[in-house]
Each structure stands twice: as C-alpha cells, then as structure tokens.
C-alpha cells in the first residue's frame, strides 16, 4: 500500500508535467497581428566580374512591396530587365539577349521571413529573407539579408544584398575577349518604402 502511495505521489506530478508541456507546444495564443504593408521604388544593381573587368548594372525602376502580418513578412520586388544600365548600351543589349528579355521582361524577387514582427518603435533591425529570384524564366532560391531603418512615421529605409549565380538561371555566361564572366553575381540595392494602410491596399 505504501508502495502505491509513493507511486501516486510521483506519478501525478509527472502526469501534470506531461499535460503542461503539451499545452506549451500548442499553437501560439497571440492574436493575429494587424497586417501592415509598405511600398516604394528604389535602386537595384548587379555586379559581375570578368578577369579583365568588373561590370555594374543599375536599375532605378525597382518596385518593392512588403506585407507583415501574424505569420511574418512577405516581400516582393521587381524591375524591368531593360531598365538596367551598365554604362555600355552594347553590353546591356547583350544582357537582354542572355536573360531572354522578350519572354521574361521582369526580374522578380519574392521573400519570406517567418515569425517576423514589426518593431513597435523606430530603429534599425536586420531581416533574413528566404527568397526566390525569377530571372530569364527560371526561379532559383536565394538568401537575402536586409538592413531596415524604421522611421518615426513608419516608413522603412531598406538596404539589401545577396550573392547569386548566373548558372542558377541557366544563363549562358557572356564572354569578353573569349573569356566568360564569373558565375557569381552580387546583388545589392536600397529603397525607401512608405507605410501604407493594409486595408486600403487590399481594396486597391
């Protein structure tokens, strides 16, 4: 009998612990955060390296939109491939050829940051986005890091960068003096995203 009392005394706390753990691992009790969104235009540039030359192409027509809700942050950016200027019209026309611009007029980036919460106060923070880049008709994953400065009015000043590969998009690497450019391409950019009312945005 004493043995069973001891077992009961030990068993109930264990049972209680099991139930408690199960409750903690359940869905978050937090209510869904109010959706907020931002949009703006910025610049994006690519840097490709050739053993004899480094080329930088800049577009000032990059459109970016972002939505943050209880699930996290969703970002989408796009730029017309024709808008990139490397300072050499011949090279830019060649770029349009290799990215098959007629069929794929836009380079598109979609990014997700799960669990992201919008800071309550102005300040700077970093965001890592699991992303997908769509270029030349081929989508490829990328990991993008962005530095965001949240302004007092809720707007975001964003700087972002990531490394990518031309081969990920089945792009035939252009050659200069018969030597191809390197496969690695660096992407970076910046934008000012204005906070917009998510409800109005959804209606539009």
């Amino acid at each position: 009998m004493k043995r069973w009392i001891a077992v009961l005394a030990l068993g109930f706390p264990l049972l209680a612990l099991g139930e408690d753990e199960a409750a903690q691992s359940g869905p978050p009790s937090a209510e869904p955060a109010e959706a907020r969104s931002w949009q703006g235009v910025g610049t994006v540039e690519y840097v490709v390296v050739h053993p004899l030359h480094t080329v930088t192409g800049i577009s000032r027509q990059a459109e970016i939109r972002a939505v943050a809700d209880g699930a996290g942050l969703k970002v989408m950016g796009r730029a017309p491939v024709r808008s990139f200027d490397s300072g050499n019209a011949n090279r830019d026309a060649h770029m349009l050829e290799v990215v098959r611009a007629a069929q794929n007029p836009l380079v598109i980036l979609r990014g997700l940051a799960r669990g992201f919460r919008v800071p309550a106060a102005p300040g700077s923070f970093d965001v890592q986005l699991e992303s997908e880049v769509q270029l030349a008709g081929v989508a490829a994953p990328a990991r993008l890091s962005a530095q965001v400065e949240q302004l007092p009015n809720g707007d975001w000043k964003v700087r972002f960068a990531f490394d990518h590969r031309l081969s990920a998009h089945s792009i035939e690497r252009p050659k200069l003096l018969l030597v191809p450019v390197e496969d690695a391409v660096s992407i970076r950019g910046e934008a000012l995203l204005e906070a917009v009312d998510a409800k109005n945005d959804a209606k539009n």
Partner: protein
Amino acid sequence: MRAPIFRRLGALFAAALFALPARGLARESAEAAATDRESETNLDFDFDLFGDGTKRSEEDPALAGRARLRRGMLQAHQIAGLTTLGLMATTVVLGQLNFDDHFSASGAGSGAYSTPHRIAAYSTAAAFAVTGGLALLAPVPYEKAPGFDAGTVHKLAAFGAVAGMAGQVALGMIAGDALRSGQARRFESVADLHRFTGYATLTLLATAAAAWLF
C-alpha cells in the same frame, strides 16, 4: 481479494502514467509535423503583392533565333578581330624590317621582307573585312540605347582602322610602283608615310579591342 484489485488499479495507473505523457509527446510530434508542413507551405512563393500579374510573355521563336544568330556572329567577330590584331602586328613588324632593309644605314636592300610583308598585309585586310562584315551583318534583336560609351569608342576606332587600312594598301601600292620605276626619293617618302599609317592603324585596332575593357 485485495491483492487482485490493487494489481488491476496498479496496471491501470501504470498505463495512465505512460500513456498520458506519450499522448502528450504524440501530440507534440504531430504539432511539430504540422509546424513543419506549415513552414513548407510558408515557403510557397506563389504570391503576387502587386496583384497585376507578373507572368512571362509568350516566347517569340524568331526573336530568340535572331538573338542566337547575333551571339554566334559576335563571338566569331571577337575571334576574327583578335586574329586581325595579331596579323596587323605581324604586318607592322615585317613592314618595319622591310623599311630598314631598304633605307637604314645597315640595310642590305635585299627585299627579303617584301613578300612576307605583302602576304601579311593582304591577310590582315581579308581578316579585317571578315571582322567588320560579321559585326555589320549581325541582326539586332534588342535595340540599343543611344549614347556615347565603350561601344562608340570601339566603332570610332574600327572605322578609323578601316581608313588606315585602305590608306595602307594604297600607299603600299604607290611605294611599290615608285620602287619599280626607280624613283628612290619618292619611294622613301611614300614608304615612310606608309610606315606611319601602319603604326597608327595598329594603334586604332588595339584601341577598338581594348575599348570593351572600360
């Protein structure tokens, strides 16, 4: 009698003792799996925040074909251009040796370099014609933005080289004619001008090639 009751109660309790946490663990793992599934779902990039459709256009086979043809022709243009540059350098070296053979104090006047120089010169002219033809006849599937850039420098240098090359051939012929007709002074002055334009043409060709590096 008491012993079997306690044994049954003990068995039930033991079952409860292990089953409940196990149920909790099973629930946890099910929730973890659900979270994983949710994560995978969250990595679905099939969303459009612009809401206006960012779909790809229909492929234009003719345009794609022209782009491929242009790429092939411009690759060949690069090879032909570098070959032309090499041949031009060879022609200039042989021309200088030919000039020295005729006019320097130590020159033997043997004419040993005359034929190799002529062969190299005509080869250069032929390679240059092929190079220019490949560039001029290449289709242009995507219009280029106007403006002054490295491509403009390349074209200006190449057109300068065309003029230089044409002048070279003409001056070479005049020099040969002067040599055959025994006009020594005329031969020397024309040969000197021919030599100068040769160096200038080589410089222009090198400029055309190097323009792409800037």
